């Protein structure tokens, strides 16, 4: 069983999956538009949540949030289901595929054999789509890859029931109903308002306040934690920014592409300028990551100590905050 599926490689798996599923259902959408309407841009420094004993920093909204918001804001019907039993989860998948329905799934990257071994890591919120089955192999549209791939049933079952943080619990989802046409403009306005609101929320750990808070913490890490542990914390932050998921800079670039498309849909040319500025903010995040990586590797140059890194981080927050305030004023 196999349904023709419009596979496209994208930068971010969740946005790519929703964009490809909608395109399959006759509603062409770019990854950037899905990310933007899904309100994907976010920042949170959550030191009380520890992964491998190190504080969690997130540069995007919660896993599943983009899918939920895109479908809700565009009036798209979905069916989502979690499972306790892998056999039941695979049987349900087969049932949908037998009816010609492509199915999105949350999986653990580490257990997907089509990923080159060096690129596998323990990340349990990776999204992909099954669109067919040949014998014991599933045909997979994994947005990370340029072409569809094949995955054996036993491997897919293991990936769907990976253990640990963000365990997928067999989660699968599919589109059950779509409107005749997408009315993007109200959804875009709503999503921009949502992103601006969450990034300026009056909580010290999230949004631009969270970036400032993290900068203050980072500056004090060497004194508080000692040099060795401070570098461990910094390395973890850089990895979370540029390795886990799409990366802090990367999400800013996708949001910039969304603003560019939004300018066209809303007929608002000022969004083009903000799009360019958001790209520049993404570059600032990446410069911070590079300086941090150099520090961790013991090859820091002048102007790359913890104080300098904190200043770079504050600048990311300031630029992003100023940009989002202007953005909010355009969609009131």
């Amino acid at each position, binding site marked *: 069983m196999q349904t023709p599926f419009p596979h496209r490689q994208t930068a971010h798996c969740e946005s790519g999956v929703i964009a490809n599923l909608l395109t399959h259902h006759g509603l062409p959408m770019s990854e950037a538009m899905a990310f933007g309407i899904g309100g994907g841009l976010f920042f949170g420094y959550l030191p009380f949540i520890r992964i491998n004993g190190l504080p969690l920093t997130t540069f995007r909204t919660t896993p599943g949030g983009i899918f939920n918001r895109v479908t809700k804001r565009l009036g798209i019907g979905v069916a989502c289901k979690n499972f306790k039993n892998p056999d039941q989860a695979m049987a349900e998948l087969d049932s949908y595929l037998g009816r010609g329905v492509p199915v999105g799934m949350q999986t653990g990257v580490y257990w997907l054999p089509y990923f*080159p071994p060096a*690129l596998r890591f323990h990340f349990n919120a990776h999204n992909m789509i099954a669109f067919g089955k040949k014998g014991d192999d599933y045909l997979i549209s994994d947005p990370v890859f340029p072409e569809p791939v094949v995955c054996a049933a036993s491997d897919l079952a293991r990936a769907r029931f990976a253990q640990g943080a963000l365990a997928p619990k067999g989660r699968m989802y599919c589109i059950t109903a779509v409107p005749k046409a997408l009315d993007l403009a109200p959804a875009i306005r709503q999503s921009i308002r949502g992103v601006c609101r969450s990034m300026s929320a009056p909580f010290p750990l999230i949004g631009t306040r969270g970036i400032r808070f993290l900068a203050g913490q980072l500056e004090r890490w060497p004194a508080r934690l000692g040099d060795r542990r401070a570098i461990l914390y910094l*390395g973890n932050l850089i990895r979370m920014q*540029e390795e886990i998921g799409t990366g802090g800079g990367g999400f800013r*670039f*996708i949001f910039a592409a969304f603003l560019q498309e939004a300018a066209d849909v809303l007929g608002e040319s000022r969004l083009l300028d903000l799009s360019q500025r958001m790209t520049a903010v993404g570059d600032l995040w990446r410069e911070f990551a590079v300086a941090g990586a150099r520090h961790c590797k013991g090859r820091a140059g002048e102007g790359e100590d913890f104080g300098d890194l904190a200043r770079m981080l504050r600048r990311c927050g300031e630029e992003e905050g100023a940009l989002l305030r202007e953005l909010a004023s355009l969609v009131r």
Partner: protein
Amino acid sequence: MLGRMRVAGECEMLDSLEQELSEMIIDTCRVAGPLAAEIAPDAPLIGPDSPYGLDSLDAVEIVVAVQKNYQIRIEAQETSREVLQSLRSLAAYIRSQQN
């Protein structure tokens, strides 16, 4: 460092862009191992089998070095994972973006 000994045999030569990229990586990440031309074009760039001995923190620097030297963005980590598989995949990505 693990993987340092896995360098190219005489049968596999780097093309000019791959050679240039290899030199850029050695310079950017201050690799003290093989000569640029000794790396196999398909050898993993990042990870335990990398002949350069690079990890994901080095990957961040390589992404930015590519952006600065070739004016080409590798915009997302999931893309960069694939692009940074080897000198060959990195060179192919740069050529595809230049065209």
